């Protein structure tokens, strides 16, 4: 009798959770539909300037043409590739720099003010110099995607390195471990979760670097599509590129988030 009652209450609780979830989904979809229908309506009725704000139907039409002529897929592919390389390179180099700073406390004291300056400086301002130095193209855009995250990665990971419990190092030192062994056995694995979570932050940063890089180089990619659309006053193209960026940036973030969960779990 009592068991039955508990089961019943539990069932009720589960039902209420499900119901809430359904409502959340419902409102999420409602906002989505409302936003796009309002946009369409406002554009058709001339409530907003259709030349600037375009309309979902026009964007969708352009999407189909651009898929058919292959330019959208090619440009998206290039931007995706640049972003992935950018944030992996940024995270890797940042971690490497952090390791060097950990290795030599003297060097880290010497470089401290320079890190502060480099971190405060807006990295996209380096764009023109990068493009001239590396020639306009893939390399300079990837460099933009990487450089934007290197310094902050270095600072975050170096801080994590320093916060590893010194007693782990003591254990290793009593076994006669070298500094390299200490790094490999304790420091790096202990900071693995931090490194993965910087990866997540760097995905977002790299998108900024890559899009700005493509603005400047202006030959390929979604950033190029935006700047081109802007120059020929084709705002349908600009908005299409924006929507594509939103979709892929979200997907990439979710993917890294998924990988993070997998890796942390296996630890």
């Amino acid at each position, binding site marked *: 009798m009592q068991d039955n009652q508990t089961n019943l209450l539990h069932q009720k609780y589960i039902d209420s959770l499900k119901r809430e979830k359904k409502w959340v989904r419902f409102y999420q979809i409602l906002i989505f539909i409302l936003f796009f229908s309002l946009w369409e309506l406002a554009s058709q009725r001339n409530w907003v300037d259709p030349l600037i704000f375009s309309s979902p139907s026009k964007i969708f039409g352009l999407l189909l043409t651009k898929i058919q002529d292959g330019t959208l897929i090619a440009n998206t592919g290039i931007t995706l590739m640049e972003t992935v390389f950018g944030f992996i390179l940024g995270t890797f180099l940042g971690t490497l720099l952090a390791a060097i700073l950990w290795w030599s406390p003297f060097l880290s004291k010497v470089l401290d003010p320079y890190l502060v300056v480099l971190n405060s400086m807006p990295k996209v301002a380096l764009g023109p110099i990068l493009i001239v130095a590396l020639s306009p193209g893939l390399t300079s855009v990837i460099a933009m995607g990487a450089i934007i995250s290197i310094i902050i990665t270095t600072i975050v990971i170096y801080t994590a390195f320093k916060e590893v*419990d010194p*007693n*782990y190092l*003591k*254990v*290793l*030192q*009593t*076994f*006669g*471990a070298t500094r390299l*062994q200490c790094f490999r*056995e*304790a420091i790096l*694995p*202990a900071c*693995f979760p931090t490194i993965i979570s910087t990866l997540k932050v760097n995905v977002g940063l790299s998108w900024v670097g890559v899009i700005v890089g493509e603005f400047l180089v202006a030959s390929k990619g979604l950033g190029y599509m935006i700047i081109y659309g802007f120059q020929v006053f084709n705002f349908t193209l600009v908005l299409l590129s924006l929507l594509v960026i939103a979709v892929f940036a979200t997907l990439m973030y979710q993917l890294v988030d998924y990988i993070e969960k997998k890796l942390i779990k296996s*630890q």
Partner: protein
Amino acid sequence: MSFLEIDHVHHTYFTKTSATTALSDVSIDIEEGEFISFLGPSGCGKTTLLSIIAGLIQPTQGKVYLEKNPIDQSSYKIGYMLQQDYLFPWKTIEDNILLGLKLSDQLTAENKQYTLELLSKMGLNGVEKQYPKQLSGGMRQRVALVRTLATEPKILMLDEPFSALDYQTKLKLEDLVSNTLKAFGKTAILVTHDIGESIAMSDRVYLFAANPGRVHKVFSIPDELRKLTPFNARNHEQYTNIFQMIWKEVESLYAR
């Protein structure tokens, strides 16, 4: 000359604003196979002295000799056990206990076999592939002991290894550690602030005084108690006498 000789060791910690003398003129001789306790309040330099013996820090003055060799050349012969187990959470138990052998390039099939047997002697069967967080505090400290013994150190340093455990586990582990070290004939130094523990486990107790850290008095534990396991020693009539004796000294130190 003794097995381990601590010769007029003096150590001062320097900071920008102060120089703190942690140890002042400490000289101790320890014979092979002895179990020694360093007893004293916090801040009396016990852990500093262990770190010096282990070769982790250089004393400002004085020297430590292990079998007549200055310690800095033979530091790998020393095993160190800390207050907490400090097992690496991302390594399996097996990888944890083989760590010392791996780092000193002694990871042979024979040594591996020896270490795994040691693990099962400690009553830990079938945990090799598990991770430290799957084990209880007492089990983890036993794994840490196996990790320390795996490299066959000549001398073992125990820095309050039981203080983070509950009382029951602590008593059981005291017996296990004491029996194991006796069976292997290992020399050991135990740092503790627990008077009872120092009496029950060791052959000699060095009472330290603080500010600056120095040896205040040495107590020899009678043979009747040495022969017993720590648990049984606690129930022996002699135990209470010695406890009272040390207690009075500790009180007089604090009264000063």
